[in-house]
């Protein structure tokens, strides 16, 4: 369909439908940030827009990288990010009660964020290397468990429960798709059901508190349940079409905490209502559907697992955040990718999309080549 048009082939070849959705989501997010700042571009909307442009160019550039290259750098990249995680432990400073950031001069780097796509690449690479016959063996499990467990532990002790859960869930998804026996997962789920309460007792006080309050937010509406209560009030009071752009009271009068970061969906829902929420969820769903499509079309194991794993990472980002703001999951500090203000989550998602585009491009080139 390209080739003969006026637009140069490399640009025409891009998956524009998906990119249009991503640009739409981000632009919608910029509108919400503009409103959350009281109808001003600063301090959030403008930097966020600029950052997005940089990351978009980066993602498009990544789409030119061949999956074979990615395959080669999977393990080194994993090693590098793991090292950064260690550095955070050693040098990281305490911010918001957690050691997560590594200050690199102008940029604050959050290595746990990078670990989300990198763990997918590493595990995909591992199962790519593993002979198919070995899949039912112990040797198909323990190296993967080790690859996954070490960074997960580091992130958990930071402490950042939300990211740790996302890294583990992303990794387990790759293991599941790689074809490990189903009983492993069923057994694992059963084990979690039993071990959960035991693990609960080892959690940090604030994490335990969050889970307890999630179960009954009204028990402490002025204290730790405040986030969830106010978020539900914002979403619920928005109604079908919302209170109108720039008219949200919960966010503008500061009743809603973190109204431009983790709880930005509630800020959006208050002003745009259920309609805005459905449109946003639908847009994310289409992006994820495209990602699953890329995975299903991919021709080799590494590409398949990587594409499916990265898509799942994006999905969990969105899903956990929405569950949280709607009061269906404890407050774990996961932002809404592309919409929440902040660079780390956006970088991760754009990295994921860049890799997905690269796999997509490779698949199409090969099918054209055949």
């Amino acid at each position, binding site marked *: 369909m390209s080739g003969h048009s006026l637009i140069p082939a490399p640009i025409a070849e891009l998956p524009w439908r998906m990119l249009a959705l991503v640009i739409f989501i981000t632009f919608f997010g910029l509108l919400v940030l503009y409103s959350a700042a009281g109808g001003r571009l600063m301090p959030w909307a403008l930097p966020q827009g600029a950052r997005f442009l940089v990351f978009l160019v980066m993602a498009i550039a990544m789409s030119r990288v061949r999956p074979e290259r990615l395959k080669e750098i999977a393990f080194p990249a994993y090693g590098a990010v793991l090292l950064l995680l260690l550095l955070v432990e050693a040098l990281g400073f305490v911010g918001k009660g957690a050691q997560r950031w590594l200050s690199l001069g102008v940029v604050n780097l959050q290595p746990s964020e990078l670990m989300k796509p990198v763990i997918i690449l590493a595990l995909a690479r591992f199962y790519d290397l593993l002979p198919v016959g070995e*899949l039912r063996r112990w040797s198909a499990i323990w190296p993967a468990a080790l690859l996954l467990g070490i960074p997960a532990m580091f992130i958990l002790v930071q402490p950042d429960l939300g990211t740790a859960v996302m890294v583990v869930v992303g990794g387990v998804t790759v293991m599941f798709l790689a074809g490990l026996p189903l009983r492993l997962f069923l057994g694992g789920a059963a084990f979690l059901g039993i071990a959960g309460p035991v693990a609960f007792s080892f959690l940090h006080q604030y994490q335990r508190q969050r889970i307890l309050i999630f179960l009954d937010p009204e028990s402490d509406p002025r204290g730790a349940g405040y986030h969830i209560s106010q978020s*539900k009030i914002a979403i*619920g009071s928005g109604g079908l079409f919302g209170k109108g752009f720039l008219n949200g009271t919960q966010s503008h*009068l*500061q009743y809603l905490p973190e109204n431009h970061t983790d709880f930005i969906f509630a800020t959006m829902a208050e002003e745009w209502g259920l309609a805005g929420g459905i449109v946003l*969820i639908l847009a*994310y769903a289409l992006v*994820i559907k495209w990602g*699953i499509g890329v995975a299903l079309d991919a021709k080799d194991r590494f590409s398949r697992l990587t594409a499916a794993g990265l898509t799942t990472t994006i999905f969990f980002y969105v899903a956990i955040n929405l*569950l949280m703001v709607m009061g269906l999951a404890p407050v774990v500090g996961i932002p809404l990718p592309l919409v929440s203000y902040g660079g780390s989550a956006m970088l991760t998602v754009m990295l994921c999309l860049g890799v997905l585009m690269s796999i997509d491009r490779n698949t199409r080139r090969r099918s054209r080549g055949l």
Partner: protein
Amino acid sequence: MKKRGKPVLTENTQAFSFTRRAMVLGAGQGVLATALGVRMGWLAIAENEHYKLLAESNRVQERLIPPRRGWIVDRFNQPIAINRSSFRVDLIPDRMEKDPARVLAELTELLALTPDDVQRIREGLANAAGYQPVPVAENIPYDKYAAVTVRLAELPGVAPLRSFARFYPEGPAVAHLVGYVGTPSKEEYQAETRNPLLIAPGFKVGKDELERTMEHRLRGQPGAQRIEVTAHGKLVRELSTLPDRSGGMLPLTIDIGLHSYAARRLGDESGSIVVVDCQNGDILAMASMPAYDPNNFSDGISHHEWDMMAADERHPMINKVMQGLYPSGSTIKPLMSLAFLEAGLNPATKVTCTGAYRVGNAIFHCDKHHGPVDMHEAIIKSCDIYFYHTSLQAGAEIISSMARRLGFGQKFDLPVPTQRFGTVPDPQWMERKYHRKWEMYDTINMSIGQGNVLVNPLQLAMMAARIASGKALQPRILRAGHYPEPPALPVSAEHLAFVRDAMSGVVNSGRGTASIAKLPIDNVLLAGKTGTAQVRRITMAERNSGGVRSNASLAWKMRDHSLFVGFAPADKPRYACAVIVEHGGWGASVAAPACRDVLTYLFDKQKAMAALAPLEEQWGGSIAERLARRREKWQAARAAPKNDSDEPPPPTRA
């Protein structure tokens, strides 16, 4: 190597398994996305109303605007209690978060609070019901108010407010007339079924006297203001305002000029002066001194100031006009004469006074040897022997009946919180109260207003007014448009004229006990009667050892009460007056001149003021100045190491 019991895995089966599992994963994701949509729909549609309400109650706060309290004015609409615009600072204990000590320390510095204030605020915080504001400072200058306002963000729980403060221009002079206002107590808040107005910062209720009893008329209707606030309590904008309706004006029968003059004329004495209009019973003045400053009390007073008041033996906290009970002493004698006349006794009959009167084996004394006296002379010279003797002929019943008709023992229909109405003894009362028979000496004691006779100053004034007017007057303090004509007093007009004439003789004959009380006004004569009420028993031993001790040689609390009742003009009575000076000594020496000056004020203000000026100079300034000096002295004494001479200085004499 283990043997494989499973189907052989190949690249193809693995790819197929991947597709299948990816589909499952995708389907799961689709289900979750749908669930999220449904959940959001539930929140935004099914529960929309509920959350809308919550968002609204977050956003909008109702703030009560306390109504301005109604003014209290005198008979000429001169202000007695008004409102002054003021800046104040309160603490809301509920909003103080975890560090009240730091907030209080900062306020202490910003507002220059005294240790007394800090102590009072601490106690307030400990006793407050959480939502109840604790007053920190009132009537503060604007710059201090502004200093608190700009630092509000760092001072959780601090509420600066522009409001109205009660102001009594005459200060202590009106304390026992109108009372004072104060922050509602926990009990008052609960008694009004938790009326939110009572916990509005700056709102005051009447705490005593008219401010308390007339609360319903003075309070007014609160206004309301709907405001939009941020989560941090910052005001965004006003949404709507319902204005307050201020309380009604309360016009009194009091002549505030006269009232203040009376209060000032009492000086440092403990006592009261009541002036009544003889035409209709209007109370023109009812001063009770010493008194607290209601302006200070309305701001919430410190513990120490309260202690100072409570420890004072002159009881500045008690309204002596309504609550002070005294033996009437000789002021009962005009009343007694009316009873004798009603009993049919001849006023011309003479009784010879030898200074002592024997009944059985008891001897009753008179202060002088008056010789033979008739009724007229007995009143003028206040001869006790005449009354001892004649009362035995009249009998106790007719005397008690006359006393009641003239207002003794009567509880008047007045809006005051407490009224002590004393005792008119008679044989039944004696039986009821002391389970004994009425004896002759009871009649004799009653004839000179001693023994069991107890009256309050208002009753004395009403007695004078009733004798003067011949009408059964009732005292009034609230001014109204229309009054019913008072009925005639059930006493013979002829008898009244006789007594009035004798009372004029007390002052004007030149032979009477109160010549000192002659009015310095041409053609206006004062009629009256002195009284000296004994508060201790004079023993035979004392009389034998060189005579009765002089008042000056006794401790203040042992001295006689000085009393005077009077009316003027003597021929056409217009004003009646009663003066009681506790432990003032001779009725003629202290109470009578006070009555003279107060009544002079009604006829010639300048002359009255001229008489007061040298007295006030001698006492050491105005009431407020003397009160301030006393407060300083008290604080200095408290700060100094305790010694045993805590007695206040003896009262200065006019």
